[in-house]
């Protein structure tokens, strides 16, 4: 190597370091740039995280950026993801019961995909080796019972049913007896989709809860709220209302296969501390997956 090459190499280094410096300056600029925060906030609001939780997150972000002396906007983004993953929590994921027998009460407003999710849950749990029984507790919507029965056939799981319009509490009662007699591991109860502001229907849910408590006290009990990923801020109100009549232990987030980001569950996690357990990502019977916070957050940004 001649001296000329050496010089060139040296200059290149300098040049590189200059560009680095510029890059640094740029990212320093980016860091103090309100525009970046605004961009991130916008992205969060656009994915239904909601204004309040978005600004909570931005507040934490600002603090940590300062603490960790972060200058690169890419790092800021990474930090942001970490903050959200922390917010979502890493435990309590999935629907494998701590012990059996177990009973899952599945609730939610109309059209979020309760019955479909129950079908997928049955399939998932059966594949894990559990004996599952389904209770057709939605006696209100036309043909809801038939819909659950189709899922029962598809998954090879027994469905306990009454007539349409009959008392759902009675269905649940029978299903408990049947689950006991057959030594089932897990009983999954469908309920009528109810707009959370309908008092009578919420009362009905209270009654079902009472029966579960009285008749199946020894069972590991979980109430799972099904939320539609396309739902906006109203999901918070829904969750709050259901929490009033039932301990909501987790969320099943459905319809994540569209363009909706489902960011509302971050708000639900942040404000109401309910963890997401499973996500529905398609129409197939096996399209119910354990929730993965990191992958979920990656998908948002």
């Amino acid at each position, binding site marked *: 190597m001649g001296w000329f090459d050496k010089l060139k190499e040296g200059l290149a280094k300098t040049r590189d370091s200059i560009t680095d410096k510029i890059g640094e300056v740029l990212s320093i600029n980016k860091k103090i740039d309100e525009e970046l925060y605004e961009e991130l906030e916008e992205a969060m609001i656009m994915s239904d995280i909601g204004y309040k939780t978005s600004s909570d997150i931005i507040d934490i972000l600002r603090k940590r950026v300062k603490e960790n002396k972060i200058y690169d906007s890419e790092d800021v983004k990474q930090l942001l993801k970490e903050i959200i993953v922390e917010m979502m929590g890493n435990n309590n994921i999935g629907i494998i019961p701590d012990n059996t027998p177990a009973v899952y009460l599945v609730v939610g407003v109309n059209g979020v995909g309760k019955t479909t999710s129950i079908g997928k849950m049955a399939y998932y749990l059966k594949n894990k080796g559990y004996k599952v029984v389904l209770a057709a507790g939605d006696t209100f919507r036309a043909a809801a019972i038939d819909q659950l029965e189709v899922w029962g056939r598809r998954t090879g799981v027994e469905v306990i049913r009454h007539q349409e319009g009959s008392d759902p509490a009675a269905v649940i009662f029978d299903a408990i007896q049947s689950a006991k007699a057959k030594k089932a591991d897990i009983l999954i109860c469908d309920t009528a989709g109810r707009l959370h502001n309908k008092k009578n229907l919420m009362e009905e849910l209270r009654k079902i809860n009472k029966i579960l408590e009285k008749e199946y006290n020894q069972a590991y009990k979980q109430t799972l709220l099904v939320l539609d990923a396309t739902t906006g801020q*109203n999901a918070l109100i829904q969750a709050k209302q259901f929490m009033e009549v039932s301990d909501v232990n987790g969320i099943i987030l459905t319809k994540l296969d569209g363009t909706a980001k489902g960011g509302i569950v971050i708000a639900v996690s942040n404000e109401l501390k309910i963890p997401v357990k499973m996500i529905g990502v398609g129409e197939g019977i096996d399209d119910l997956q354990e929730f993965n916070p990191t992958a979920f957050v990656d998908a948002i940004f």
Partner: protein
Amino acid sequence: MAFEGLTSKLQETFKRLKNKGKLTDKDVKDAMREVKLAMLEADVNYKVVKDFINSVSERAVGQEVMESLTPAQHVIKIVNEELINLMGKNESKLNISSVPPTVIMFVGLQGAGKTTMAGKLALYLKKHSKKPMLVAADIYRPAAIKQLQVLGAQIDVPVFSLGDKINPVDIAKAGIENAKKSGCDYVIIDTAGRLHIDEELMNELVNIKNSINPNEILLVIDAMTGQDAVNVAEQFNNSLELTGVILTKLDGDTRGGAAISVKAVTGKPIKFVGVGEKLTDIEVFYPDRMSSRILGMGDILSLIEKAQEAIDEKKAMDLQNKLMHQQFTLEDFLEQMQQMKKMGPMKDLLKMIPGIDSSKLGDIDIDEKELDHTEAIIKSMTKQERQNPSIINSSRKKRIAAGSGTSIQEVNKLLAGFEQSKKMMKQFADMQKNMKKGKIKFPFFK
């Protein structure tokens, strides 16, 4: 509380604007910030909100405040106008085919409420002396056909189905043929819910559309939809060229920001809204009312409208005079009650008043029966007794109770209540007088 509803949020904002002599740039900016937050909480799309705020701010800043309005009212006026601009001014009717049947195709995501809404619209048409037929073209969701059949039976409307093994395009075509033969003048085709990014299924809809040429292609969308409403609406509109939108589940605390988003990106009118779980819970969509509701005037405009229909203005003036001068009698009370009844159930009226969170109304049960009892009691009084309740002694009370089928206790309760409200009215009347004279400033009228 994070969520008190857009309505009360906006009221807060405008309350703050009230009683300021002038509307500065900063005022507008502050107000618009709150409007922005409120709209975002109502799930109006972020970009739509941004555009809206810009356009309103532009109009608001530098504008002369109209003489008869306070600056705050003027901002409300502008915001309201812009919202109405966004939503469209008038309600929009169904397109009708010159040769029957009129064919209406329902499309939308899963769970939006298509099948239920198909039943509701069929019942609505039937009530308007039409002969609708429902066509079950959702061959994918388990028991979807059954659901439509059950609904059809409930409302006594024929449901056409070829089972779930036949191509939806053929079902739609055969359904329309069948409707023609049986003399039905409306055909509602319920299609399967699908994702807007599912090309295969979207193509199926395009095929149905091309082979039947529907008069209406209505996107059925959940009023609780979040930011994604714009994508959904855009995609369906791009593939199918929608003719309109139906908003479902717009009841209770649903703030329905999706309505604004969908209208903004597609430009297509919202034709109907679903407002409850019963099959009769369907309403024609009035865009101007929606915007006033979002604005925080509740449905106060329709309340005023309703009130004007029912109450003769002169009578109202007389009443006010009587109130002021303490000449309010049981007879006036009866008349007032009857006029209120004309306006509809108390509960509905309460809901329209802005700032009242209807979710909290759930527990308040206004007993319409009690109003009936009150009416009966007053009607059992003589004219003299109504004018001058103080003459009602125990034997009169006995007679009144017997005549109205109530008890003496109830009569007593009414009389006591009446005296009390009379006192209250006097206080109000005094207050009003004093206020006019500028004597008292009330701390709570901030």
